[in-house]
């Protein structure tokens, strides 16, 4: 049973933005975060704006080496996109272990990002490819790095009158690897205990760029930048990788909850970052030798 609410059903983006500007209302996309929340402890009488009819918000555009993904693109859309395994391998690995089929059909990328949960699975992969988000409102549009969009526990830079219109990124360079791993308490349909996405770019045998994004181990998904910096400018030796992984673990601010303790989560970050970086180095290195 859901508490009562009002639902506006705009037919165009402009109409939606006008509604957002003039009335206090919350965007409703797939509803897979909002509806369970409402059912659990929602007060009656809120107002929502359904994004269901706004087709222009949904879909993926591949333009050269740029990928532009509409906010209402669902997790299953990501899996169905034939170009995505190249465009963001980590995002595809993530989508495969995101919830179950029915939720994947409803859950949107914008909903995942804007809900701002530390366990939002789509965010680590997107951070690992330096995604930017474009927010639009009746007043105009702005684009900012996803990294600076995330502010804290369920806190983002999203303003009440804005919609997240697109998420965009540049396809990682050829000599790179982009990996994701989700550790949960069961294999299917689980809330993430630790989520890790990494990108490693290799130029002439040396790591020219690294990204390490971590989920469920801090108030928000974040990039372990200090750890990333350790990797830059040389080959990735076991020692460098381990040092970076340890640094990432130290940068984590996890909590104890019913799924795991903070201590375990930090340990898992260390292990998983080390593992993914090692794999990334090996696979991207292998590509170089081709």
């Amino acid at each position: 049973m859901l508490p009562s609410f009002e639902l506006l059903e705009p037919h165009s983006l402009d109409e939606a933005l006008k509604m957002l500007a003039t009335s206090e209302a919350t965007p409703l996309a797939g509803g897979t975060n909002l509806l369970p929340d409402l059912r659990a402890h929602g007060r009656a009488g809120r107002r929502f704006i359904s994004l269901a009819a706004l087709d222009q918000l949904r879909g993926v555009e591949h333009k050269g080496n740029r990928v532009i993904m509409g906010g209402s693109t669902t997790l299953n859309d990501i899996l169905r996109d034939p170009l995505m395994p190249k465009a963001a391998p980590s995002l595809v690995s993530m989508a495969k272990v995101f919830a179950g089929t029915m939720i994947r059909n409803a859950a949107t990328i914008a909903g995942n990002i804007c809900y701002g949960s530390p366990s939002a699975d789509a965010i680590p992969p997107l951070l690992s490819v330096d995604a930017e988000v474009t927010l639009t409102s009746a007043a105009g549009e702005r684009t900012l790095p996803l990294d600076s969009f995330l502010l804290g526990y369920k806190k983002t830079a999203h303003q009440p009158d804005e919609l997240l219109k697109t998420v965009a990124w540049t396809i990682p360079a050829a000599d790179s690897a982009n990996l994701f791993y989700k550790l949960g308490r069961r294999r299917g349909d689980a809330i993430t205990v630790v989520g890790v996405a990494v990108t490693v770019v290799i130029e002439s045998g040396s790591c020219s760029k690294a990204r390490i994004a971590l989920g469920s181990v801090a108030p928000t998904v974040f990039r372990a930048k200090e750890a990333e910096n350790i990797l830059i400018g040389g080959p990735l030796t076991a020692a460098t990788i381990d040092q970076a992984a340890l640094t990432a673990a130290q940068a984590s601010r996890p909590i104890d909850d019913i799924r795991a303790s903070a201590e375990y989560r930090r340990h898992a970050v260390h292990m998983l970052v080390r593992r993914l970086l090692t794999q990334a180095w090996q696979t991207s290195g292998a590509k170089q030798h081709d």
Partner: protein
Amino acid sequence: MNRMENPLAGVKSEKFRQVGKPLIRTDSPTKVYGTAVYAGDLTMPGMLYAAVLHSERASALLRRVDTTRAKELPGVHCVLTAEDLPASQGVMTDMPGQTGGMTKNTKQPILAKDRVRFCGEPIALVAAESVAIAEQAIGLIDVDYQDIDGVYDPFDALAPGAPIVYGDDNVVASYKIRKGDIEKGFAEADVIVENTFTTQYQEQAFLEPEAALAWVDELEVLNIRSSTQVVEHYRAVADAIGLPHNRVRLRAEFVGGGFGGKEVMTIEVWLALLALASRRPVRLVQPRERSFLSHGPRHPFNITHRTGVTRDGKITALQISFTSDAGAYAKLSPYILLYATVGATGPYRVDNLHVDSVSAATNNLPACAFRGFGTMQANLACEGQMEEIAKTLGMDSMEVRRRNFIRTGDANATGQIIRSAVWSDQCATQALAALGKRPENSQTTRIGHGVACYQQSYGRILWMKDSSEAWVGVEMDGTVVVRSAVADIGGGQSSALAQITAEILGVPMKEVVVYFGDGAVTPLAGTSTASRALYMSGNATQMAATRVRENLLGCAGRHFSVEAEELDMNDSQVFVVGDPKRSMTINDCVKLCAAEGVHRHNLAIFKAPTSEGIDPETGQGEVFPDFTYGAHAAQVAVDIETGEVRVLQSIGAHDVGQAINLRAVEGQVEGSALMGQGFALCEELILEQGQLQTRSLSEYLIPTSEDVPKIKAIILESGSGLGPFGSKGIGEPVYAPVAASIANAVTDAIGVHIFELPITPEKIVKALRRKETVG
């Protein structure tokens, strides 16, 4: 013991035409087409919707429960609190038996009065025009709690000075076994191995939450259609609210999973009260988060084994203690503890044995029946201990098991002589062999193999004097009807009766209709619990069908001028064996019977063996009709960096006596494999100061399709069971060894035993660290 020989066991057992075959279950099509009706699907004109207010506090006085505002809400028809209840104030949660005997004082208030003892205890009931109104009314009930000291750990509860949950002390039940000479046994031992094993709360997590519809009909009979494992709760409902037994009719609809969680009465009595108060039909479907509060999960157990063994692995003495957390009300805790006590030695013969068991009241969720019923926890400890003994002695654990397996003719822990076949060794050997070769370890994963055996009873405690009735009849057109009040809880309970009847009367199984689960119009069959439905109702059905067959063949024999023994029935024909020309259709035969005034139907009663209980000082005596034996083997891969465990293979091998429906038996083994995997690795109800932290299926995690290993069922048939055609009960037994086999496989993989279930990645990481620092 007054043991009744099964007069029909073994009849034509070698040449079954339908029994044992993987035939399509009679309930399959309706479930697959979506036409099967469950209790929550039922509606009636004028129906009201119920909602329940559950306590938010674990231990508190109820200073005031004010329902004024709720009653004033338009659309609300009645609001009930303890004040409004009949004087009896209690629901009997004692194990219902046909004899109605109540041996433990297990009354529990229907609604809390003056005091709440657990978080979730029902306080008030509402019936209203819609679910929304009922929920709103619940929100308008004002409860003034005054917290009082509670106790949340069974050991704390048993310590002097602990807050008393109810009664005189917090001891809900205790048992002991004193067998042989324990001192002598330990003196004969070369080594003594001692370990403590703990298990967690496990939630049944049936997919269908509690649901029922109740109304008073034109005969002033209170009707309840419910998702229950026990039709005979109609008596408990009647007693609780002061109606004569013949004015309560309880029907069990198709049950969307029970596993013991729908054994003790859940929501039926609430609906009965609301229907009587409102004089309208009332339906309740518990929302999932309240379902967690509406039945009892599996008891957490703490089990210590101190085992004396000789150098060659023979157990010379065993001292076991059990402490279980019963939660805030007794429910079936005394019986579950008894099952653990009787099953303390697992499938092993131990001549010098001490067992001390106690169940403690706490302000936690009251725990209750769950597939395996105490025996599985006891077994888990035995099987873990086998590995530890083997490690200490430097022996193979299967060798230790072989030295100690109980055998036919041996006495078990309570001195009961095992009469049926014991194929533990064959089962374990086959299950292990089926795992095949071990894959190679990788840098970060370790492969482990584990096995566990078990002994699990089927059929109810002998002094409950269990019986089951069944009616079988042939219509004038030759079609067959079975009537049995058995509850169909998804294991193919009604279908098995059709298959047995079809075999005996020689008609296609799908042409048999089984009317089941109606406490008023189908013959009472007892509970669908204790792995007894097939054993008891199968026997009753076999008896009834056999008598109908005798009547039909008698008529046909007179017609063909042959002895009945020369006749057989198949494909809806009655014929002279070896002379196919002399045959008639079953409907012609039935018409002959009718013309001769011979019964075309029979009502049979099957009575289980009985005993008068165990000696309270020694724990010696006969407790169960019989036991099932078998084994489960598992192959796991453990990630030694993250502690994640992947079950790769899960293989159950069981002596089922005789499969009635092969597919249904295999289905039980497979379902158990995954449920046991959940218990071993990821399932855990977490309580903090009595407050349940895991109230949804995203926090309480049962295995998903992604967690499924390669599962295999190996079915052995000794024909030695007490059920129809020599079958044994299997619903619980096949579950009993699973978690232990997985735990043992993990131990094998990482070289450290984790004594505390569930085996989480975190515990593995910690154990490996300890090993590093110690080793």
